[in-house]
């Protein structure tokens, strides 16, 4: 412990939780900033967003088209999956841009320590 309480006046452990939370928050912010800087190379982000959007839409359309061919349900599943693919594409872009940590999954905990 480097932050030792100087005297008996202050309760040393009472606000420990808040202090830890404060330090962790600061570290998380610094980490997020570092990550953002590392990945914010202009054209890289643009290309990534474009590929994310178009790629996901293409997967949706391909699945819809394939299901239509397989089940013979006319153009309907293609239409449905086109919109689902577009929604998923926007979702992927949103997640990619939100933390610019290149994650395509859920909110990424920036806590370097492991929970498990």
């Amino acid at each position, binding site marked *: 412990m480097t932050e030792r309480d100087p005297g008996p006046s202050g309760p040393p452990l009472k606000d420990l939780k808040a202090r830890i939370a404060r330090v962790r928050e600061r570290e998380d912010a610094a980490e997020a900033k570092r990550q953002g800087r590392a990945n914010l190379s202009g054209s890289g982000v643009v290309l990534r967003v474009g590929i*994310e959007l178009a*790629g996901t839409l293409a997967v949706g359309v391909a*699945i819809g088209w394939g299901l239509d061919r397989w089940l013979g349900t006319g153009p309907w599943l293609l239409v449905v*999956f086109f919109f*689902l693919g577009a929604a998923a594409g926007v979702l*992927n872009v949103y997640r990619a841009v939100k933390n610019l940590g290149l994650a395509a*999954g859920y909110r990424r905990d920036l806590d370097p320590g*492991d929970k498990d």
Partner: protein
Amino acid sequence: MASPLAQFEIKNIAEASVGGVNVSFTNSALFMVIAITAITLFLVLGVRKRATVPGRWQSMAELSYEFIAGLVRDNVGQAGRPYFPFIFTLFMFILFCNTIGLIPFSFTPTSHIIVTFAMAFAVFIGVTIVGIVKHGTKWFSYFFPPGAPIYMAPLLVPIEILSYLARPVTLSLRLFANMMAGHTMLKVFAGFVVALGLLGAAPLAILVGLFILELIVAVLQAFVFTILTCLYLHDALHLH
């Protein structure tokens, strides 16, 4: 003059066929073998001396190891340690394929979507299996965002599944598009140099800049592929 796309042509070096399936040894395969040989030599010869105070070469070998070890630790956590060899191999392979492909008259295996897709699909399948083995049926809750009202499920679950299925596609497309676009651009500008004669000095200067950019892209894309693999693995191990 050769077309800018001629560099991506697959040529057979040794024809072979097993049960009607074409298994010829191609220039793509040759450069993959070269990449793997280079990695093996780089790492094995680099750490051969086992010096306590590493020399330049040993430092580079150790640096690449520690870089990926840190990446796995930061992005996957302690639970990701068993997967380190796979991720390290993936990174080194893509890095060496990308950079060796920048040497004139060589071939870039990663500029073919089938190569990058094979790697991305292997990652996708592997990560899915890891997730299912670790979490069982609970893994399927991954497709429903926590806290969302249950009546939204018919809309949200298909979107989440699509977003998940798109992972191997976007992962492979990114590496392939960067490599292919970069190499085509280099070749187009190189064509200008020849066609413009004396004035070709201008595109030549641009070419030098582009080449440096391509070198950065080659390293960066290997890194991006690796870090995304780490994040997918993190999702599979910890769900959300």
